[in-house]
């Protein structure tokens, strides 16, 4: 187990560094082709939406569920719409989720 753990830590470190270096090395310091320049600004809404969905409804075994997290994220959505500060938003999300779990 120990070897497996350390190989995972070292391997993921190297792979992550390579992934993060790819864009800056391959496309760094020059203007993007116009096709990419139209697509890139829209990556943020696409990726963030997918992250919200997978982190709210995803499980460890390829399925989607509605559980206490959905309640916490819904309350966070209301707080965000009212432009409350982010630390308040995330604490509300955690608190609501914890309360729902305690009740069910």
């Amino acid at each position, binding site marked *: 187990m*120990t*070897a497996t*753990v350390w*190989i*995972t*830590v070292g*391997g*993921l*470190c190297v792979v*992550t560094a390579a*992934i993060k*270096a*790819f*864009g*800056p*090395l*391959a*496309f*760094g*310091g020059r*203007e*993007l082709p116009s*096709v990419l*320049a*139209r*697509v890139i*600004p*829209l*990556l*943020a*809404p*696409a*990726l*963030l*939406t*997918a*992250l919200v*969905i*997978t*982190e*709210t409804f*995803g499980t460890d075994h*390829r*399925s989607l569920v509605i559980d*206490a*997290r959905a309640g916490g*994220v819904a309350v*966070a*959505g209301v707080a*965000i719409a009212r432009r409350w*500060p*982010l*630390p308040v*938003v*995330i604490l509300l*999300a*955690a608190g609501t989720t914890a*309360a729902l*779990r*305690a009740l069910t």
Partner: protein
Amino acid sequence: MSSGLRAGLPYGLASLLLGFSFGVLARPVMGPVAAIVMSVIVFAGSAQFAALAVLSAGGGAAAAIVAGALLNLRFVPMGIAIAPSLRGRSLGRALRGQALVDASWALANRGAGRFDIPFLLGSTLAQYPGWVLGTVLGVAAGGVIGNPDTFGLDAIFPAFFLGLLAAELRRPGARAVSALGAAIAIVLTPVAPAGLPIVAAALAATLGLRR
């Protein structure tokens, strides 16, 4: 950079809580030292949780690395996006690319394809200590608090991404992209390995080609 540091502080607090959660969950599987070293040298929350999930299920190192790498693949499009804003030698660009994390990337986005790189570095600098310190505290407290999900810590990540998304939706064309990205993620989650649905959702950005 100092404005990035200030903007990153609330995210540093979020990183502290998430790192705590990681430390608690990782200690029984990986041992205290490896859990902390992982946060210090990998510094990628969702990838670390994914690799940990594979190890807890009894999976091997290769499967754990692939799971983590899939979740990190989103840094390829993010890295391409910041590339035009990065000047200088390739080694310096590659090193500054290491500062890529979701919140810093979204916060440093100035629109029209430009990114404020010093701001991005400052924002990440505010989050890194939170992630590492949180992991250390989680490893230390692990035996005492039990499952961190009891405290709803797993809802922090999506709430945090929702906050970043809300700001992005004000950009022209963003709502249609978000809706298509959601559809791709929902359809692929039951059939594809974790991480792939997120990367595939990036394809929704090609709606930008219509204009």
